[in-house]
């Protein structure tokens, strides 16, 4: 026993020393932590591959990819984790965040501005909608590889069977009346159960705000007044009430269901059309091929509106080596890398140079409608205010209550009260120096 130990001890000590040597990185190697929300499996794999490519192509910076399990939709759990880390002073160097949360983080001083890093050349090549989404108080705090697209999809065969006109660009989008007629004729088809899948399986959360605030805007309302940041008279005004009445009528008329069991109602043929973000488009195309067509959002009367803003990269103020972090971001923003992720998730490539190289999104490409919507300015960023978390939660709660039978005016009034209370609780969100 004793003899064995005597031989073993030096060997163990040597082994320990080797282990330490092995895990201690080279002297001048910068190690950065990166947090990523859980997207779809393909998206996660591709992002991880991009990080690996970056680590492999140079020796100075090592980016450690950390994927935090979020919820299925818009990373609810991920946001909770980031909030907790921000308070604990435990944020990573590079943070992946969903568009509208940026204003809250930037206001609180957790994000470093990127303006000094971005060359004029780069800035001019980036989609204006991405710049708009990243701007808070005159500075850019986040930059995404791609922007999101929100549109309708349909099947050419069904639309023709129902005798519905198929719009081909945003200029000849359906009007509200045309859309209502289309819904009625599609529902009447024998081969489908209902007209449109609204992805209600995502539940009360960011999807409601992302997808249905454009409807409110299309009717002439909005979530808040974009200048005063107050919701009074805007979210509970007659236009917003009309929008909510119309949304509820979709369910009352049986055009849509409140309880789709999963994401596949369009693919499995239950629904004739889909209202969707770009992230479903690839799967839909795989199911139907050229029978699937992307349709521009409906012109509801007051204006044409759609959603924008997606996950973007940012550098936190807790990062000790922001230059290295930017080197990584610059790599991610290269047109080739942008296309390698957008080919997987069907999001709109964030740079004009990448767009020009894309068969999917370029002129005549089958996803081109998404680009038209972003470039023409009909896409509206979600409210640019540090109080966004309160705004979105008030809106999607009210909408959930309304479609499940609540009184529209009462629910919208309650949402406005919550938003106003939040503004008061935060002393009106004074701009920080």
């Amino acid at each position, binding site marked *: 026993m004793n003899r064995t130990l005597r031989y073993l001890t030096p060997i163990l000590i040597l082994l320990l020393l080797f282990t330490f040597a092995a895990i201690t990185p080279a002297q001048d190697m910068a190690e950065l932590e990166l947090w990523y929300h859980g997207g779809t499996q393909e998206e996660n794999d591709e992002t991880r591959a991009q990080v690996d490519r970056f680590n492999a192509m140079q020796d100075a910076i090592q980016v450690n990819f950390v994927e935090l399990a979020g919820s299925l939709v818009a990373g609810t759990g991920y946001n909770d984790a980031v909030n907790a880390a921000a308070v604990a002073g435990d944020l990573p160097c590079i943070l992946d965040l969903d568009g509208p949360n940026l204003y809250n983080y930037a*206001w*609180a001083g957790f994000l470093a501005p990127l303006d000094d890093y971005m060359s004029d050349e780069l800035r001019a090549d980036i989609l204006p909608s991405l710049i708009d989404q990243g701007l808070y108080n005159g500075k850019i705090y986040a930059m995404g590889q791609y922007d999101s697209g929100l549109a309708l999809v349909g099947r050419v065969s069904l639309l023709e069977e129902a005798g519905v006109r198929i719009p081909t660009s945003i200029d000849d989008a359906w009007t509200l009346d045309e859309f209502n007629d289309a819904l009625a004729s599609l529902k009447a088809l024998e081969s489908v159960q209902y007209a449109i899948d609204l992805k209600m399986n995502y539940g009360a959360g960011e999807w409601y705000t992302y997808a249905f605030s454009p409807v409110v805007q299309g009717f002439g309302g909005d979530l808040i007044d974009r200048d005063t940041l107050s919701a009074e008279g805007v979210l509970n005004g007659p236009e917003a009430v009309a929008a909510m009445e119309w949304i509820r009528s979709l369910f009352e008329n049986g055009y849509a269901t409140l*309880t789709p069991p999963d994401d596949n109602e369009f693919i499995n043929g239950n629904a004739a059309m889909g209202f969707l973000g770009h992230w479903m488009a690839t799967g839909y195309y795989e199911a139907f091929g050229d029978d699937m067509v992307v349709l521009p959002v409906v012109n509801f009367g007051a204006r044409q509106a759609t959603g924008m803003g997606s996950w973007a990269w940012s550098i936190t103020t807790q990062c000790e080596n922001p230059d290295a972090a930017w080197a990584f971001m610059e790599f991610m923003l290269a047109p080739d890398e942008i296309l390698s992720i957008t080919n997987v998730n069907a999001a709109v490539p964030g740079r004009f140079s990448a767009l020009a190289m894309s068969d999917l999104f370029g002129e005549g490409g089958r996803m081109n409608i998404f680009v038209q919507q972003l470039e023409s300015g009909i896409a509206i960023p979600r409210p640019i205010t540090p109080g966004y978390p309160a705004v979105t939660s008030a809106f999607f*709660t009210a909408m*959930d*209550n309304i479609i499940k039978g609540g009184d529209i*005016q009462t629910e919208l*009034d309650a949402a406005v009260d919550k938003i106003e209370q*939040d503004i008061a609780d935060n002393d009106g969100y004074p701009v920080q120096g």
Partner: protein
Amino acid sequence: MSAPALIGLFLFVAMPLFGGVYWSFTNKRLISPLPTEYIGFQNYQNLLGLLVVRVAPEIDEATGQIQMNLEGNPVYPRTRTVIRGDPAYKGYRYWFTADILGQRYVVIARDPTFLRSLINTFLFVLVIVPGQGGLALIMALLVNQRLRGRYVFRTIYFSPVVTSMAVLAIVWTFLYNPDQGLINRFLSAITFGRLQPDWLVSADSALLAIIILSAWQAAGFQMIIFLAGLQGIPQSLYEAAQIDGGNTWQQFRHVTIPQLRNTTIFVIISTTILAFRLFTQVDVMTKGGPQDATVTVVFHAVDTGFRQQKIGYGSAVTVLFFIIVVSIALMQRKLLRSDIELE
């Protein structure tokens, strides 16, 4: 000797508790550059603020008569106008309306969701404690019989307890789907389509749906405790009862039930405390909706504290919650003293 345990208790129980009490008197926010300030009992006032306002019908200015709508009912002003019209009502929100003896009363509260969460939580506890306890006792009696394969049944009944609630909640969301879910398909088959509840989608049935799932999930745990209790009853008592001519029901009523007294007390107290913590099912399945029908105190604490980023306010919710649960547990202990020995 007890140092490791005490350190653990201090770090993970006492510290957060004191932290919560301290923060509940501040306006601490989760993500904010603004300084945290001491605000006294403001959070508690905001939680509990409740007023009943009598609303007079609108008077037609031309005739001086009460305005009537087409159905012949008086027209009342919008509650929002009433609240905005009186500075004393500042910060209050509409909760519900009650028409009593031809008078309209509007109940307004500073945080109607919190008050609703109190009601929902108590309702949940009141139903789940007897419901789940009764179910557990029946299951325990079933698997306590000397029948073949009783270990298989015990395992099956216990398996939901060791399954993650988040997973179960997602599975049950599918089961509860009104059009395609298994439960409504089954109900449709046995009632010929007459009984088709909307379950989670309707404010009337959402809490019931959560109660059924919760009882199903947790009853296996109480079943094991009851089973242990049943097996601790001396066989001689049953033999004595049989000699006295007691039938099965009499044996159950006069031997089993009294002998299970201490077990039952433990089950009631532990179920009550566990039931008050209702959160996961609600968070996964309904997010407190529709129309606050399933919001619970713990859900409201997490929602206000983390998602709405008002840590101070969320802390006040948990402090009130702590006081409520502790006083109920103490009350139960007093009412159901378990130190009586039965022989």
